[in-house]
């Protein structure tokens, strides 16, 4: 018998401000290369931008765990990049519960995470939301997601990226995110999915690899901000694909969205801010 969402929401409101530190995360060239390979990126001197999610994952998951054990879907993710992640760093991250919202989809928890090196150099700030589906009375406490910039018009380009269970598993290994509904048929079915789902962060990572190649000349350190909404699960099965559409507005902003093979939007309201 699942716990009523109103109870979880009340606990979440009381838990606003809860902060948890991730264990020290050291970086190695092997680990960064493993992640790059899993998201279709070439190994480089610095980590792919979305790698910044990895050191915060532990504390982010533990913050959610303070509120509920219920299944929570990744809803939105926004990055502000301060400095690139490189091999040989010692990274310290902390995550805080900063906002609680309900809407007709369910309960949204907003978690803000900061990562810095052991010398205090700021690396990345991230705001992510997770959604626990169900019915709940209206609640709005703490802050909301950061405002997203709107890109001006531009010429739309497209890219297609194949999806497969093997790719999902490679990402799970590279991220150490072994969520069983991404990897196991029965566990996905138990949550009502027709097949395992792709990690939201894998879809954003695949999109980012393509965006950096086209709009930042392959230099990911030019990325200042990045974000999107994970609007629908992408299923992890043979023959599936991510259809990315994107355009630059010529003013340093890139807008993007992506759909699955049936045309259903899976990433929406995507943006990337690229410096000159």
């Amino acid at each position, binding site marked *: 018998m699942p716990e009523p969402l109103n109870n979880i929401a009340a606990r979440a409101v009381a838990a606003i401000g809860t902060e948890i530190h991730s264990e020290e995360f*050291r970086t*190695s060239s092997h*680990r960064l290369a493993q992640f790059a390979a899993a998201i279709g990126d070439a190994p480089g001197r610095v980590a792919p931008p979305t790698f910044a999610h*990895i050191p915060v*994952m532990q504390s982010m998951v533990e913050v959610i765990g303070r509120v509920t054990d219920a299944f929570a879907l990744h809803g939105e993710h926004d990055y502000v990049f301060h400095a690139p992640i490189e091999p040989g760093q010692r990274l310290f991250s902390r995550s805080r519960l900063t906002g609680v919202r309900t809407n007709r989809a369910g309960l949204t928890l907003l978690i803000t995470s900061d990562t810095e090196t052991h010398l205090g150099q700021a690396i990345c700030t991230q705001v992510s939301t997770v959604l626990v589906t169900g019915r709940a009375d209206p609640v709005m406490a703490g802050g909301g997601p950061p405002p997203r910039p709107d890109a001006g018009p531009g010429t739309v380009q497209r890219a297609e990226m194949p999806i497969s269970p093997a790719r999902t598993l490679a990402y799970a290994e590279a991220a*150490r995110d*072994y969520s069983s509904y991404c990897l196991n048929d029965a*566990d996905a079915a138990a949550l009502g999915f027709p097949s395992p789902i792709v990690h939201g962060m894998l879809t954003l990572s695949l999109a980012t690899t393509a965006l950096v190649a086209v709009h930042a000349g392959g230099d990911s350190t030019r990325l200042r901000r990045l974000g999107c909404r994970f609007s629908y699960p992408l299923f992890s099965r043979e023959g599936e694909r991510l259809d990315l559409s994107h355009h630059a507005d010529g003013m340093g902003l890139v807008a993007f969205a992506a759909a699955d093979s049936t045309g259903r939007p899976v990433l929406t309201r995507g943006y990337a801010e690229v410096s000159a």
Partner: protein
Amino acid sequence: MKSPSRTVTDPRPAGWVTHGEVAPEWSAVPETSIIQLLARGCHEDPERPLILIEDGLRMTRRDFLARCERFAGHLRGIVKPGDNVAVMLDNRLEFMVAFFAIVACRGTLVSVAPTAKSHDAGHILNDSNPVAIIHGPDQTPVVEAITPGRGMTVIALGAAEPDGLAHLDGPRFDFRTAACQGGDCVSVYYTSGTTGAPKGCMLHHGWWLRVIDIDLRLFRRGSQDRQLCVLPFYYADPTLQLLTSLASSGTMIVMRRFSVTRFWDVVTKLDATELLSIASIPALLMTGAPGPSDRDHRMRLAIHAGLPKDIHRTLIDRYGFHWHNQYGSTEGGIMSRVPHALADELVGTGTMGVEPPGVTVRVADDDGNEVPVGEVGEALIAGADLYMGYLNRPEVTAEANRGGWYHSGDLVRRDERGLLYFVGRRKEIIRRSGENISASEVEAVLGAHPMITEAAVVPVPDAMRGEEVKAYLLVAAGVTMDSLPPADVLAHCAERLAGFKVPRYLEYRTEDFPRLASMKVDKQTLKSLTPDLTVGAWDREA
């Protein structure tokens, strides 16, 4: 579930070092049996790998639990609560599957070194009278020699790893329904004791859970952490590493056996973040030339018992992660460790830290009375859930536990901050002209010499002085008495040790020492190589 509210009053004097703020007892492990712990961890995070073996084997929690539960379904027909089952296996997955299957049936795993021969393995079977023995292909000749007439079930691994026990799968035994009690004896490890035949040290669920809980509370780990296991599975440590990895969303990485040439490759490619180190591993890691990749890994901690203090700083500077000295034993579990917050400050002091909360070490004289700070005494241990005792040896157990303290046989001292220092094994003391010399102290000094990889110090019977000190020096190929004159070695010792501790006999070797499975030097074999220990050795007084 245990009550986590129980607190232990720290009996240590004010001003003594502590581990600082440590999470409450049982906050890391609320279960009352390791089978409950295994079942919870595997059901919670089923797709996360539990074990990665260096040459490719990958086993998720889900697959591991399924293998354990199926083999337990078979074993239930053979093993009744309280029965012993001998296991004689190398570092391969089936060891762990057998371990948990036996324990879920409320049986006891009796650990036999996979390299044991008919005499030592036979002694363990005589002593423990197991209902079954599980072994691999390499152990077949020994098992065939020692099992006839005992009426025990012999289980030979069938297919290749990881399916060596798959031919015996039975109906799945859901471990969540296992009836294990906290006092059930989980495992028996034979300790090599310096007197008499090896004795079986019995460990119950409470011992296991307490060591796991203490370890996780002293050093927090997370889902990006992977502990590297380089020890033989027939020790308790690898199974402890497996369970602490399980309980902290981590993964255990396994080397079949330690190899310095493969070590960094495994660390890098399998992404190790932590090492449980023993014996000469630190010295071996210092043998190669420093290189640019020395810090291109994710290791953040090594825990080691008896780290040579002279290489401590160099080791950290070179590889960029901490080495925490620890004091542990099968009987006493984790008896002391360097507090994480003080690690920097204590580098190179040689201290093995202070007791974790809930454990007390008394540095005592022969009457069990605490000796003054700074003086050497035997470490006596008190705490909940120490070992259960020695199998079939109530009188030996009573002697070891006299006065309510476990007598470790280790000589230690404390400083004015309460920090503990290892001095030597009581039984490894060389008695020269009325002076007591600790072999390990002399070995540590010799091992710190840049041209000496490792030293082994033994007593030599001597008509004049009772015993004399002989040092075997393991040196790099090409090092001779010309390039490393004995006088230099003695001068190195004399600068650092009282004169009576300086060795009289030196023997240089370029071939590695004979070693026990623990990688410690096998001094018995070493000494047996030359009937007269003075022959062929350089003699200071010759």
